[in-house]
């Protein structure tokens, strides 16, 4: 079985959950899976062993002391080549989506992005990915011998499979010409980002005015989730762009997505229809959002949201 290299990313001092999902997904199509990481501690990497990774190359070159696409891409390709991997798997995170196509070029591989399923039944890995704003799903194959995939976060389930992990500290020889450097990272202070949340409560034009969004914020905090928004309310300046969910905003797949006063236009659905559970709250029983909902409440957000918030608080 050909070896798969999984690119591991951290979030603070933990491995990203999406990286653990990628390990499980890789193990479902190959028995030989290894990892590559940049400057992570043994402590951070130990979790990869719990999810079944036996070996990780931890690259510690000066060139990769902070994120730089060109340097990272070259280092990942170098590790893949020196370990005879034939396939590289990324998570479709902001960095993953930027790196994966670059690596595919250097690695002479075909690339399938933002996949939601991998299958190896025919001996040839096929992948499924949503297209046309999620109105269709394509199954694709990569014809080159070497292959690169990125996986949509929170679609694959990370499964524990403890094994003993060897972390190999690695200096790879790469020559990096002009590159890019991250000067600064501006965190959205005190606010959970929709891309990092297990639960998202989004508000749309049904909230009528920006000053009513406290109803959405309160419900989100009762759920322990993040606030999202439709484009209509972002364009109107009611909510910041970073909260927009949808085709021109962020693609999310939380465990629970609650859409409040959102009609469910196809461009909104494109960003959230792969959520595990969808709840719609809308006064129009014919609103398209109900077609993708697991559970719906037909009614007025001004009436329902405070009651739902109170109910959740009462059971805490």
């Amino acid at each position: 079985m050909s070896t798969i290299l999984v690119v591991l990313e951290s979030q603070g001092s933990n491995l990203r959950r999406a990286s653990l999902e990628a390990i499980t997904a890789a193990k479902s199509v190959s028995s030989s899976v290894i990892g590559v990481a940049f400057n992570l501690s043994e402590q951070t990497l130990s979790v990869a062993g719990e999810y079944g990774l036996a070996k990780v190359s931890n690259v510690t070159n000066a060139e990769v002391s902070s994120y730089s696409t060109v340097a990272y891409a070259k280092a990942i390709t170098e590790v893949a080549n020196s370990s005879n991997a034939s396939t590289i798997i990324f998570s479709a995170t902001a960095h993953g989506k930027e790196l994966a196509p670059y690596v595919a070029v250097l690695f002479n591989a075909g690339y399938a992005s933002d996949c939601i399923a991998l299958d190896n039944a025919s001996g040839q890995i096929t992948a499924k990915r949503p297209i046309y704003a999620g109105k269709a799903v394509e199954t694709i194959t990569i014809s080159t011998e070497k292959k690169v995939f990125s996986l949509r976060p929170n679609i694959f389930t990370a499964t524990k499979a403890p094994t003993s992990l060897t972390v190999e500290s690695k200096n790879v020889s790469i020559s990096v010409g002009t590159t890019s450097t991250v000067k600064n990272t501006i965190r959205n202070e005190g606010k959970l980002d929709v891309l990092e949340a297990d639960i998202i409560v989004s508000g749309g034009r049904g909230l009528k005015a920006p000053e009513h969004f406290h109803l959405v914020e309160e419900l989100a905090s009762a759920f322990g989730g993040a606030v999202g928004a439709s484009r209509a309310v972002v364009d109107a300046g009611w909510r910041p762009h970073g909260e927009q969910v949808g085709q021109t905003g962020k693609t999310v797949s939380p465990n629970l997505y609650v859409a409040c006063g959102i009609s469910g236009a196809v461009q909104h659905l494109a960003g959230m229809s792969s959520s595990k559970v969808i709840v719609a709250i809308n006064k129009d029983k014919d609103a398209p959002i109900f077609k993708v909902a697991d559970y719906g409440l037909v009614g007025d957000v001004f009436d329902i949201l405070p009651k739902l918030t109170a109910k959740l608080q009462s059971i805490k």
Partner: protein
Amino acid sequence: MNILVCISQVPDTTTKITVADNGNSINPQGVKFILNPYDEYTIEEGLQLREKLGGTVTAITVGNVSSQEILRTALAMGVDEAVHVLSDSKDAFSVANDIVDAAKALSIDLILFGRQSIDFDSFQMASTVAGLLEQPIVTMVSSLTISGTSVSTERDVEGGKEVVETSLPCVISVQKGINSPRYPKLPDIMKAKKRTIIERSSVNVASRVSTVSIELPSSKRAGIILGDSDADISELVRLLHEESKVI
């Protein structure tokens, strides 16, 4: 500075999608094709940089004959030249090779892309082109400043933004929020119709991925729709807790 803006033609998102008899493409009948909405920002950013820094802006698309229409839109908005590479390939790798071939021929300093095409949402063209040219790349850029050869950007990442610096020549993909695209004026639209579009032939590299099949997604949603009474709200909380186990 010579800027290349890459633009693509896509089906309007509101179009109803039906799968063709061959099972691996969509029926083109009745589909309205438009300029990829992200590429309005791509063109606008090219024009604004030219206004500030001088130089030229060339728009390019790789596609069939009908895709020339979006080049007319780019000309009407104000790009200097428009290049059409005739190709039926949907493979991103082969399209990227055509863009690289043109960029080299035109001595381009900066290549601009949209964040993604709204048909395949594949989010790979910009990085593929950068990889082929071994140039730096920054994607999802919502703020771009260039002075001399220094390039300073802000891009969205999980939980915030990153400030990323690099230098020309480089590749950038832009996203909503970076600018407000202009609407072409009627006289400019008329003038653009008469302009000559530069034709380049495809370098025809072998494609690397292929679509085996396309299916319409099957909904496996429970679809339990309740009202707004207190009992309904309690039932929703019970369902989330006991059935879906998400809270």
